[in-house]
């Protein structure tokens, strides 16, 4: 993988930036996620996180099965705030 290959399309991170964080001593997806916004975009990390797990596996010598992915957070798919409001109002008739 060459240095300018894009890893995270949502946050525009290339492999060099990811390797830079690993060189600084960050050893987990969770840390790199927070500092670089890795996997914080609309794809929810589906594309980038496996690539970063592989990089961490290479850097630390641990098998990829021992590298933790980032915590999955809801929702599974991005949804408009207005859609949530509409569904809530339909269910409850707007009453709380």
């Amino acid at each position, binding site marked *: 993988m060459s240095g300018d290959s894009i890893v995270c399309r949502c946050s525009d991170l290339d492999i060099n930036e990811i390797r830079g964080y690993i060189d600084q001593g960050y050893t987990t997806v*969770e840390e790199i996620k927070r500092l670089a916004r890795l996997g914080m*975009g609309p794809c929810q990390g589906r594309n980038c996180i496996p690539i970063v797990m592989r990089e961490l596996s290479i850097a630390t010598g641990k098998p990829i099965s021992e590298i933790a992915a980032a915590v999955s*957070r809801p929702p599974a798919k*991005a949804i408009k*705030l207005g859609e949530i409001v509409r569904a809530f109002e339909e269910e409850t008739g707007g009453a709380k």
Partner: protein
Amino acid sequence: MVKTADAVIIGGGISGAAIAYELLKRGMKDVVVIEKDYIAAGATGRCGAGIRQQWGTEMNCIFSKYSCEAFERAEEELQYEGDIEFHQGGYLMLISTESEMEQMKKNVKLQNSLGIESKLLNLEESKEIVPFLNTEGLLGCAFHQKDGHLNPFHTNQAYANAAKRLGGHIYLYTTVTGIDVENGKIKGVQTDKGYISTKIVVNAAGGYSMQIADMAGVKLPLYSERHQILVTEPVEPILEPMVMSFSLNLYCQQVPHGSFIMGQTGKNEPQDLRITSSWDFLDDMTSTITKVLPPLKNLRLLRQWAGLYNMSPDKQPIYSAVKEVEGFYVAAGYSGHGFMFGPATGTVMAELILGLEPTLPWKQLNIERFEKGELIIEPSVV
């Protein structure tokens, strides 16, 4: 892992990192921070990261002004290579009841007397700051330009890196399993990676501070409570200030990256350590925010998560030694404003531990205040 230390700080959030940095800056040598996950894994990395100086007690105004000024010079002082993303777009505090108006008038007067240049705005002036604000049901707003928000991950990392540069040891992925107390004095800390002898332990464990205190045989009058939060997709900058309302129960900001972050206090939250996400929060939060800031209905929700508020009886932190256990110090119970008080926490705890003259009014925040009934009531908290 080192075998001995001058002080062991438990917790690698903003509090623990700032305390370590301020102790080292004042000449303490072997300072250790123990963190069970990674930097900012707990409440710091989960919070809304708002910074406001619009408070209702003199003490909180002084603490928050001190902290805000520290954040303004943090990148330079801490020599951080990254960007802590301090955006001072102000806090716009919505006023929707007469009693809220009375309180805000008092608050602004107090704040102005302490050098905080907050002011009351009518609805027209408020709309100049947020043109798409729905002013229906509002009476006005209070505003202070120097309030704002930060990136909590980078801010926490900046303090941790600075502490390391001054010779501090930070052990991540290390769990404290016991605190060794002998004849009423701290003797050491047991972790899953080894034992450290020390005479000083600082409990900066945020939502888990009660469990850490239990290990030293100390009961803290605190409990933890889940608070939920969500983030949207990033869009062009349209919202300068943090928008906040006590009576409508909301805060909402647009981070420099473009995403909107918003949260509110849940109803009937249990007093435990859960940090799960719920649909109730989405229903309540989206209904509230799309009334106040209607264009947000077109934004997509990307993620929701939660963190712990560590609540004290008067919703003020405990900065204190503990008289039953010599060498045990507590910096906890922030009740939702631990991140924005971070720099003050570092200074206060360093002064307390090293026996220095207070530069901030922290003496009233000792743990004995609850027994004595000397509570400090802040009227303006979410």
